[in-house]
């Protein structure tokens, strides 16, 4: 039933892609909150607390949508991917449970304190709550990436008598080198999203002439963090990630680059469209030797093409994989250039007065979301046709008892519900932005009014 597998994949792809729009901002923004709470605590400057309080509201909305869209993800392992759960649950269940026990408990115990509890907690505990939430969100990311890394590059497992997988070494599984590289790359990408969003709002307030002190704070913190994160996401983390793919999934690297024929002096295509039927890249503009150098460190290195691998081991959607990967790289490069220029203007003291740059910064914030999504599409499409690389095919993973009609039904349900959620989220965030950062915190009312 190829048909059923397709719908299960589409539902998971849709729900996870939508879900991940929220955690990537949470994970990026969390450190801004920690930083501002820390600065506020140290300097006593109320501007920092104002910034933290304002962003905590946006963080809270974002976090809430992240939580409610995240719960279906865990359920879907059982509902939609029973074959995979039976086969691999003994391994990946470990990290999914650890995520709940170590990360979600931490986050959810303190998120209420962070969002609802400034008056109850006082500044010191409120800072600690921000720190706990930031740590929890990154820890959660690590456990998920260990799970994904196992699917990309399985380690630490053993095939049991009944054919299913069990853990052989938990430390090997948790310290999967793929997971470290992917975690570093992914978290930097989340910081790019968070810092672009902070900078964009600073730019908006600046252009509007609203809340000037706050706008300056957002712009400076946002652009500085964005420059650092944009560089780190490309080098060393992105570079290491590509090398990891080259080492463990050479067929994936060939497909990502649209490289149908192998050889030395492998080039990187700047422009070109893969033509899978004719097995070539149409109208390419290429940098010769660049791929050899990037993947193996020498221009002369041989990089295998798709022709070196049997047809049924190729990723099943080479075009989408190729475009995802190339567009991600292109966007990442533009991010570095843009933020380097913003940093330059900042040093000259002209960041707030260069209006065209403010416009660009304001309108740039959706692109890190796109780049993050494309990165995940590269990772997941590149892994195909495997669900666990080299061990378990995607086509064996879905729940055989669930008909494709049921899956289409729930998929449509999610699309509708998430559309409403998205509109609601944008409306409420827009409202917070138009209200802007509030004034100093009002004193706590001592008595309840008569009810």
């Amino acid at each position: 039933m190829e048909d059923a597998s397709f719908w299960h994949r589409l539902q998971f792809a849709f729900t996870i892609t939508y879900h991940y729009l929220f955690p990537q901002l949470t994970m990026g923004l969390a450190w801004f909150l920690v930083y501002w709470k820390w600065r506020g605590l140290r300097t006593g400057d109320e501007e920092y607390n104002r910034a933290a309080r304002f962003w905590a509201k946006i963080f809270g909305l974002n976090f809430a949508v992240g939580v409610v869209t995240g719960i279906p993800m865990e359920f879907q392992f059982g509902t939609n991917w029973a074959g995979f759960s039976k086969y691999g649950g003994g391994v990946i269940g470990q990290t999914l449970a650890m995520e709940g026990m170590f990360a979600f408990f931490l986050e959810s115990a303190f998120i209420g304190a962070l969002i609802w509890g400034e008056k109850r907690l006082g500044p010191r505990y409120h800072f600690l709550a921000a720190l706990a939430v930031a740590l929890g969100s990154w820890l959660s990311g690590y456990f998920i990436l260990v799970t994904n890394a196992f699917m990309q590059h399985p380690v630490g497992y053993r095939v049991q008598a009944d054919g299913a997988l069990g853990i052989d070494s938990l430390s090997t599984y948790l310290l999967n080198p793929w997971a470290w590289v992917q975690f570093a790359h992914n978290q930097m990408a989340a910081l790019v999203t968070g810092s672009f969003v902070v900078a964009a709002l600073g730019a908006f307030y600046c252009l509007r002439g609203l809340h000037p002190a706050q706008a300056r704070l957002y712009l400076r913190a946002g652009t500085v963090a964005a420059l650092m994160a944009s560089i780190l996401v490309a080098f060393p983390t992105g570079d290491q990630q590509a090398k990891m793919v080259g080492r463990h999934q050479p067929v994936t690297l060939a497909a990502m680059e649209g490289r149908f024929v192998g050889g030395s002096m492998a080039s990187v295509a700047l422009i070109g469209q893969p033509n899978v039927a004719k097995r070539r890249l149409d109208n390419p503009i290429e940098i010769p030797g660049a791929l050899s150098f990037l993947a193996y460190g020498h221009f002369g290195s041989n990089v295998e093409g798709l022709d070196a691998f049997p047809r049924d081991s190729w990723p099943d959607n080479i075009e989408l994989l190729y475009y995802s990967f190339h567009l991600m790289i292109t966007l990442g490069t533009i991010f570095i250039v843009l933020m380097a220029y913003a940093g330059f203007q900042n040093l000259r003291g002209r960041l707030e007065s260069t209006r065209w740059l403010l416009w660009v910064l304001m309108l740039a914030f959706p692109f890190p979301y796109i780049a993050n999504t494309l990165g995940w599409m590269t990772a997941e499409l590149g892994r195909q046709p495997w669900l666990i690389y080299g061990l378990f095919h995607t086509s064996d993973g879905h729940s055989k008892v669930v008909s494709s009609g049921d899956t289409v039904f729930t998929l449509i349900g999610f699309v509708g519900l998430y559309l409403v959620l998205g509109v609601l989220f944008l409306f409420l965030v827009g409202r917070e932005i138009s209200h802007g950062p509030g004034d100093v915190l009002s004193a706590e009312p001592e008595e309840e009014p008569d009810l």
Partner: protein
Amino acid sequence: MIAAWYGIAAFMLIVYVVLDGRNFGAGMLHWLVARTPQERRQVIAAIGPLWSWHEVWLVAFGGTVFAVFPKLLASAFAGYYLALFLILWCLILRGISLEVGGHINDRMWQGFWDFVFVLANSLLAILFGAAAGNMARGVPLASGGTFSMAFFTDFAPRGYVGLLDWYTLSVAIFAAVALAAHGATYLMLKTRGIVHDRSAVYARGLWAAAALLMLVISVESAAVRPDVLGHAIHNVCWWLGLLLVCVAAIALVAGLATRREMLAFIGSNLLLASLLATSAAAIFPVVLHSTLAPENSLTAYDVAASPQSLAYAAIWWPIGFALAATYFVFVSRRYAGKVSVQRDNQGFY
């Protein structure tokens, strides 16, 4: 080892039901105990800061089951496909109604989200109750360890059953009443003024109704699953559970009668917990009973992960749980006492 993991999984589910059950209950009673916008903000403030902390126990439970009983998750979740998505969508709506309702201080806006809040919580209580009924009654499990079933068939709890039949429906009704009583007890503890007084009245009435329904359910359960009782009387945990039920019931009745709200609330938590623990002990070791043929039933031993996976989980789980217990103390201390609408809001108005 496997029996211990069964106990741990049951324990985590019980914590979830006890914690989130107060939200379901308060949600169901929201319109009845709180009538003006100001009164309703009190109910929301009693739940708002804590709902995600409560809901995460469901996620941690699910994750733990996935780690130690992966084949149970695979079999049961795929079989309950549509019902589970209904629960998921209700959970999404419940969380969202709490988070966004307080953002705009407007009667229509808050009225709408109050409606979503009441609806989602009521459906959740009923759906989780029906799920509990399904666990007790069993599902049409085929020999391969898989099943799929309709929402309802002929409403008889035998053979090719559906999600709903007269037995699971009555369990669902009991669950709704008991959780509403639990929620009323919680609101009585956390609120002041007229909301408190109304909650106290509802708590007494609903617990009386729940006690009656409990008797009915017990008789029904003995009729639907006559094999369970003969099995359970040899299980010491089942007897301990029954003892706890009695202790909890006494504490609850004493608390309600003498208006000691904390005692009543402890009794309420303990009563729900011990009822669930008794049921979990009664059905052990079967985790998924087959209504078609007893030999198709899945036991905890059939669905467990490898011994090594369980051994690893036995290392990190206690650490994770100790940390969670620490947060629990923090959360309970921070939100002890009556709620304050001024203080326990998100600061949006």
